[in-house]
């Protein structure tokens, strides 16, 4: 790929070891994908933050990398960590795990990366992302940014997003190019979708069917809400490696691509495959992190009542602050629930915290908890989950 004089200087180490390694990584990726050059990115969002996911190898790398003078040069944000960075003791996170997690946070802080610790950075970044090139790693946020917000990002990994944070650049290929952002599969929905869970199931079904293609989804009766889109994005990025989708309300006459039809029966099959029938003591909501509207709904349902089961609501520290002002946090915690931030049920050491199964509305969580933790999930809509916690 073409490199500017300055980029070449970075590559031979003239600006230090950290920037050399970051450039070497991005150039290797760029060459592999036939990128013509580097492009400037406005922000980077880095995955691989929880000690549970990156473990000792990740921590070792971050320690070494941050000690060589690595420092972010653009707005750099983090995915959720392995625990609420303030209230971890209260939630039963083991001491040893917590110390490792805090060490990871110190590495990121030394690199001037902001401890946003959320998988929905778009809820704070807002609509200003249209047309912006970014380097984001959280797979659900990548799909959301490309498809809903009109931003441009590839599905970055932890290391490449970190390299982009350091250099403020990303190789120009894939989803950064307009001609690549075009549907290659048609998905026709032949049933009504009632809740964010239905959207999650639809996404999970689509991801399993189209792999890494870009689907164009049609046949929806109504335009989905942001929260429903959030669920759709998350699950299609888990069962497949979809970078973006298109959506058309109503029928789609377009032909010329492989067409897939999905009806209620397919969604029910997906539900049965992912969900356990058993009863569980923990209700976990917030994968991806809960938005304010969802926190408001939870607060309304539990208001003045008492949760009979554990009710854990995961969101970002930023949104929790707003939810606190609005009174949602107070209402939920008075009812015995917890509004936890910086983390979620997927990346926290949930088994060590005494959880052996959860009730949730997240297909993504159900998928990962089963494969990575051997923890089963019972799937229900957000509202049903909250009522389950009260019963």
């Amino acid at each position: 790929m073409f490199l500017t004089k300055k980029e070449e200087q970075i590559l031979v180490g003239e600006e230090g070891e950290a920037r050399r390694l970051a450039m070497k990584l991005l150039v290797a990726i760029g060459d592999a994908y036939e990128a013509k050059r580097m492009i400037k990115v406005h922000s980077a969002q880095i995955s691989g933050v929880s000690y549970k996911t990156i473990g000792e190898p990740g921590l070792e790398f971050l320690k070494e990398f941050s000690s060589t003078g690595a420092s972010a040069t653009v707005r750099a944000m983090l995915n959720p960590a392995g625990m609420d960075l303030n209230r971890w003791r209260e939630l039963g996170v083991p001491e040893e795990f917590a110390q490792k997690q805090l060490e990871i946070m110190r590495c990121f802080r030394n690199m001037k990366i902001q401890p946003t610790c959320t998988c929905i950075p778009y809820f704070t970044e807002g609509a200003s992302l249209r047309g912006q090139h970014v380097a984001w790693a959280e797979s659900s946020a990548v799909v959301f940014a490309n498809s809903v917000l009109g931003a441009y990002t590839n599905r970055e990994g932890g290391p490449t997003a970190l390299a982009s944070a350091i250099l403020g650049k990303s190789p120009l290929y894939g989803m950064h190019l307009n001609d690549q952002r075009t549907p290659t599969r048609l998905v026709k929905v032949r049933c009504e979708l009632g809740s964010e869970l239905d959207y999650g199931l639809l996404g999970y079904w689509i991801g399993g069917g189209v792999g890494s293609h870009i689907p164009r989804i049609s046949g929806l009766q109504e335009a989905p809400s942001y929260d429903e889109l959030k669920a759709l994005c998350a699950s299609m990025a888990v069962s497949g490696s979809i970078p973006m989708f298109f959506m058309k309300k109503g029928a789609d006459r377009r032909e010329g691509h492989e067409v897939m039809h999905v009806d209620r029966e397919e969604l029910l099959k997906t539900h049965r495959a992912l969900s356990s029938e058993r009863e569980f003591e923990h209700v976990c909501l917030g994968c991806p992190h809960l938005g304010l509207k969802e926190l408001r709904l939870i607060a309304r349902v539990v208001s003045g009542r008492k949760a009979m089961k554990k009710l854990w609501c995961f969101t970002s520290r930023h949104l929790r602050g707003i939810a606190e002002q609005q009174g949602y946090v107070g209402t939920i915690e008075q009812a015995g629930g917890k509004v936890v931030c910086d983390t979620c049920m997927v990346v926290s050491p949930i088994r060590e915290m005494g959880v052996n199964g959860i009730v949730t509305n997240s297909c993504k969580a159900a998928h990962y908890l089963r494969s990575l933790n051997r923890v089963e999930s019972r799937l229900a809509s957000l509202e049903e989950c909250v009522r389950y916690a009260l019963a």
Partner: protein
Amino acid sequence: MLSRRLKMNGRGVVDGFGAGEAVVSRQAMSFFGGVEPRSGIVIETGHELEGQSISGKVLVFPRGKGSTVGSYVIYGLRKYGTTPVAIVNIETEPIIIGGCVLANIPLVDRLDKNPVEMIQSGDWVEVQGNIGSIWVTKGAASDTALRAMKR
């Protein structure tokens, strides 16, 4: 027994030279949750390489899969001295590229012949990441065969 030395040309993705015995998998590989860094042993349940060590070997497989944390696991292999000496993919992807850059492992892909079919575990493979070429000496007893040829 004469051994045949076969050259394949492809694309050098991460530079460097590595030579060793091949370990070949027809299945995609996830390093996160799939390889134990301290031992370099594949631990993914049901994987065709489960229980085998990739340490010091030329690792041949179609492509990476799974979490991008896999790059850190490959870096971890370097820390523990259990890396493969080189990696050969059919078509590589960012997790493997990232790991090979961080851990200094030569990486080659897009060869003119299918490496997963042409190379068998135990073959001797030399990988030249700078030019994207590999040389394969067939036969599990390749060291002996090479010495015999020199004599």
